[in-house]
């Protein structure tokens, strides 16, 4: 940044040679800098008369008594202007003395030529920050006192001055500042508590467990201190690798959630209309009997498939979690349940990756712990510093190791603020950028040719007549290893890819009468219109910037592309996934440390492979949650009459809430919710069951990284709460399939450990004793596709996907957004793109009632650019109504330069009680992309809205 007026610098040096070399270094700045020299204290005093921005001082240059005291005083005079000490020799003693003097940094004389400029830049950059503090402190008084505290009395100043004179020396610590003895058990941090020991409310103890929420940084190890039967403190638990010792403000807030006065404590039965909030507290026996009776009748009348069990990702323990007890129950009953392949959310980009990199690749990438091996990290459509906060330290490790972080995001996110470069792309135009980058890489021949020829479908011949890969005659597509053909340049004929030593990248040939071209040619032709200039026009970025970004990505190796779920919330999410994988493949960034591409940064699936949800090999009937409301309404392919929601907040998290509430729910004869709190889904239930938290039942979680952790039952379930395992088992008993839950939970945990190669050698008893153990993973486990073996039909990276031929999308062609694109006929009425983000203070809707966190993030706010507010006569903190043809929400507005004009940003997960009126989830739609490998996916951000100031009558 170019300063407004020249920077004033003072040298305090004696040696002319040093003075000269400083002048030489600084002369590069030209008129942006002015410097003067001082050789005596009198010179310094004179220089201090005018404004100074920086002092460069050789502490030995001045002839005066106490050097440290002199500089300390000088330091105070300088205020925010930094002082850099120049030392004749670089020894720790000199440096320590310089720190004592108050120097902001020390440099050895010999370093000045190379180090001075970068250090000056950083320190002077901080001046803005230090000035910011002064501004903040001026305004801080009001923040420091709780509401209702008396205002300051100005006469206190005078009185305090009088008092000071009478004060005796009061520097000693008061004698009564002593502490009660700490019980020995408090010191047993990290040691595990034996579950066999009776849980006594009187003793204090520290127990290790693990958080199991789906925050994206799963799963932090927690040490919970229990006193008087309550969890009174949560701290980070140790790991063999200290990088995994971490926790967050949400993890600490479990203390408040666990003993929250709003916890559900007994089963509840609805009185009155659904959603009216009238409940009767009933016994577990009554609740389970009545629910089971109703389910039995529905099963008789409509078939077992009319019963849906809808666990979601709210908890990710092995048994009491997403693919745990309720799906096992559904399978045993022959009922329907959440699909383990089609989540309806977070599955678009993974669909594209799965198609391109092969089965089992969609959600995986090089591990977060591999980040420090990268030299360039493109963070595209994600905000990991916020939404993967406890993985962010690995990004910082990468940065410290010299990686450059580049963030592509319409919004100046926290991640953007921490990155070396931020590209403010127009929302919904990411495909344009990706297509232009791919075109540039090909046209400039920045390709890794060897990789492209050997490991992608680029040289494979594609039939012009039907778009399929050309295969050996008589080889059926579904038969054993159908051999795709390439054009071998040396042989001058088509050969099976595996037999060709010189496959041609490009060319049109007629083989056995069939005209063919290479997949590469098809791709290149498709890319032709996507020049940097065209992309610039669409994305709002600069064409030169696009060129530089592409060159950097193609030439700095290894480079990694990481996306999260930002672009996943658009109709074109899968195509974006395909394009970024193609970028990585064309630059040879696959299968290497520091490279890779993917959504998120888990090399290993979040949940272990498990036969638990499939007792005796029997599965439930999978349902894509996004399509469930439509299925309830249309009764196609079969009626659905009962929904059992667990580990989730269905009405809050799925789109198009009005349709769900007003058209789907009335068609259900039974809605049961198991949860810890009266969520907005529970409010509409017929029965609400109080579930135990992860502190109250036994289970385990896979992760973080290479670990597996045990979760003991630390405290007794609150009230009458029961574990989900127990709830499912009791229901199973009443529905005639009690044998599915006949073993105690531990035996199923043992089975899951044995089912997985990496945990087979782990004995549950040992895991219980240790709390955390490392799974057995291969060398280089952090790297995805290390062997460059891709589980695609061709075994190669498939930027050309035959599965998508019926959709006309075999090539990753441009695909417009459904709704939020320039020129949509809806735009005049609903001109703003409505994007949703994840708060760091909540995990979806969990913690929205956590008191400590609510003091920080007090209420939902719609972030808009001041320009959009001004156009509508809206000022900061106004109540605004955001609406479209589907619904509306009323909340406070926050004017922020971080978001571009033309957008409004909402934070997802707030519940109806948090809004003034309406609901953010009523704005979204349930239109998914049927071409996705993982089924239709919600396009939460592919949404248009308008915003208006609401009437004055609102409080």
């Amino acid at each position: 940044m170019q300063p407004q007026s020249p920077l004033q610098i003072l040298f305090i040096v004696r040696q002319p040679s040093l003075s000269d070399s400083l002048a030489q270094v600084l002369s590069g700045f030209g008129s942006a800098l002015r410097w003067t020299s001082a050789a005596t204290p009198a010179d310094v005093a004179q220089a201090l008369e005018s404004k100074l921005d920086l002092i460069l001082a050789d502490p030995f240059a001045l002839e005066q008594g106490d050097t440290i005291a002199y500089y300390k005083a000088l330091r105070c005079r300088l205020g925010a202007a930094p002082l850099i000490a120049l030392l004749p020799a670089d020894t720790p003693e000199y440096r320590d003395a310089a720190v004592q003097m108050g120097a902001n940094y020390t440099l050895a004389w010999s370093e000045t030529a190379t180090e001075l400029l970068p250090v000056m830049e950083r320190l002077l950059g901080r001046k803005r920050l230090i000035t910011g503090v002064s501004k903040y402190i001026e305004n801080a008084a009001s923040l420091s006192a709780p509401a209702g505290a008396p205002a300051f009395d100005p006469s206190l100043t005078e009185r305090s001055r009088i008092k000071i004179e009478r004060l005796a020396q009061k520097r000693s610590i008061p004698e009564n500042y002593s502490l009660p003895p700490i019980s020995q058990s408090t010191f047993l941090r990290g040691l595990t508590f034996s579950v066999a020991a009776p849980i006594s409310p009187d003793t204090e103890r520290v127990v290790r467990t693990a958080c199991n929420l789906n925050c994206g940084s799963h799963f932090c190890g927690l040490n919970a201190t229990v006193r008087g039967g309550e969890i009174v403190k949560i701290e980070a638990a140790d790991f063999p690798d200290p990088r995994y010792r971490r926790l967050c403000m949400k993890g600490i807030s479990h203390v408040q959630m666990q003993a929250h006065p709003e916890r559900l404590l007994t089963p509840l039965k609805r009185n009155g209309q659904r959603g009216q909030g009238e409940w009767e507290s009933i016994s577990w026996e009554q609740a389970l009997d009545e629910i089971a009776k109703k389910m039995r009748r529905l099963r008789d009348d409509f078939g077992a498939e009319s019963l849906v069990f809808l666990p979601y990702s709210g908890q990710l323990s092995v048994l009491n979690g997403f693919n745990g007890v309720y799906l096992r129950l559904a399978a045993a009953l022959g009922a329907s349940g959440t699909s383990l392949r089609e989540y309806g959310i977070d599955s678009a980009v993974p669909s594209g990756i799965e198609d391109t990199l092969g089965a089992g690749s969609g959600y995986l990438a090089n591990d977060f712990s591999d980040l420090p091996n990268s030299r360039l990290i493109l963070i595209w459509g994600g905000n990991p510093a916020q939404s993967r906060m406890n993985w962010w330290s690995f990004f910082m490790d990468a940065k410290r190791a010299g990686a450059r972080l580049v963030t592509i995001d319409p919004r100046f996110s926290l991640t953007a603020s921490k990155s070396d470069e931020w590209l403010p792309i127009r929302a919904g135009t990411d495909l344009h950028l990706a297509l232009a980058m791919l075109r540039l890489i090909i046209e400039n021949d920045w390709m890794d040719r060897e990789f492209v020829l050997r490991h992608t479908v680029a040289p494979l011949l594609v039939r012009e007549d039907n778009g399929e890969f050309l295969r050996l005659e008589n080889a059926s597509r579904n038969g054993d290893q159908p051999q795709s053909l390439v054009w071998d340049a040396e042989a001058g004929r088509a050969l099976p890819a595996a037999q060709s030593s010189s496959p041609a990248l490009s060319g049109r040939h007629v083989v056995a009468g069939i005209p063919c071209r290479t997949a590469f040619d098809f791709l290149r032709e498709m890319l032709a219109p996507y020049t940097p200039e065209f992309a610039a026009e669409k994305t709002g970025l600069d064409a030169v910037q696009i060129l530089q970004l592409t060159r950097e990505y193609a030439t700095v190796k290894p480079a990694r592309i990481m996306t999260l779920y930002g672009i996943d919330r658009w109709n074109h999410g899968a195509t974006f996934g395909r394009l970024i994988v193609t970028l990585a493949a064309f630059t040879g960034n696959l299968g290497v440390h520091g490279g890779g591409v993917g959504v998120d940064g888990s090399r290993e699936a979040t949940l272990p492979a498990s036969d638990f949800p499939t007792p005796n090999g029997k599965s439930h009937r999978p349902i894509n949650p996004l399509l469930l409301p439509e299925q309830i309404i249309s009764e196609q392919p079969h009626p659905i009459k009962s929904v059992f929601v667990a580990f989730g907040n269905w009405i809050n998290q799925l789109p198009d809430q009005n349709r769900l509430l007003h058209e789907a729910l009335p068609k259900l004869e039974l809605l049961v919710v198991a949860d810890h709190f009266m969520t907005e889904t529970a409010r509409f239930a017929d029965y609400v069951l109080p579930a135990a938290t992860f502190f109250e039942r036994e289970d385990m979680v896979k992760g973080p990284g290479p670990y597996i952790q045990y979760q003991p039952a630390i405290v007794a379930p609150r009230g009458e709460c029961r574990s989900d395992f127990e709830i499912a088992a009791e229901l199973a008993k009443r529905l005639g399939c009690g044998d599915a839950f006949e073993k105690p939970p531990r035996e199923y945990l043992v089975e899951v450990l044995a089912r997985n190669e990496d945990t087979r050698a782990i004995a549950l008893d040992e895991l219980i004793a240790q709390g955390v153990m490392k799974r057995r993973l291969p060398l280089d486990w952090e790297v995805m596709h290390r062997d460059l073996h891709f589980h695609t039909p061709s075994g190669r990276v498939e930027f050309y996907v035959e599965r998508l031929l019926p959709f006309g999308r075999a090539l990753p062609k441009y695909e417009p957004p459904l709704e939020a694109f320039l020129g949509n006929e809806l735009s005049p009425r609903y001109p703003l793109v409505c994007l949703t983000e994840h708060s760091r203070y909540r995990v979806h809707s969990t913690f929205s009632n956590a008191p400590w966190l609510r003091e920080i993030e007090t209420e939902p706010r719609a972030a808009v650019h001041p320009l959009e507010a001004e156009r509508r006569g809206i000022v900061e903190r106004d109540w605004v109504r955001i609406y479209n043809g589907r619904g509306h929400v009323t909340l406070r507005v926050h004017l922020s330069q971080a978001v571009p004009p033309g957008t409004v940003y909402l934070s997802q997960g707030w519940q109806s009680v948090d809004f003034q009126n309406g609901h953010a989830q009523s704005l979204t739609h349930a239109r998914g992309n049927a071409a996705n490998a993982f089924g239709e996916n919600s396009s939460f951000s592919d949404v248009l809205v308008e915003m208006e100031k609401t009437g004055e009558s609102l409080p």
Partner: protein
Amino acid sequence: MTKRLVMVIDLQACTGCNTCSVACKQENNLPDGVWWTQVVTLGDNGNDSPAGEYPNLFMDYLPLGCQHCVNAPCVEVCPSGATAQTEDGLVIQDPTQCGGCRYCMLVCPYTGVRVFAGETLRYSLPFPTGDNPMIHRPFTVEKCNFCAHRLKRGLLPACVDSCPMVARTFGDLGDPNSEVSKLLRERPHFQLLVEKGADPSTFYLT
């Protein structure tokens, strides 16, 4: 050199997540509305809002609590002995001695790091959290004590122990081999409002 306990906070690492603030709340059982440390966004218009104009923006975070000054004016003015300095450099605020005159709040150069507890102290939980045995009292001044009760047990302050970014380091600046001495030797740093002359013991790495 004499012992001087200091906190060094790496602003490159800090993401403003407030885990430190919440850990402090838990450890010290702070009443509702009372915070001994907070993370301030140095931008514009509140938490997590950058300064500048789209797309030329910048944003920094500054964890802010008692700076534990060497020349602590609060210690000088406290008429009751509630505010005192230990030999190793902690500035301790003891609510059992505090008369609530708030002179300390007036003379502190760092407005906002102290809290005056109002008439009614409310808690969201019916039992105290954390290990600080301190009893919070209405009409007294409270502030960060560098978790003196934890230091006595050989533990780090709660904010330091909890920081997921390991942005906070705590130790003895008098010991040339301590981590804090090393960091200040090696990295550019600054203290807040040095011109006030209080010589704070909180250093920020840039």
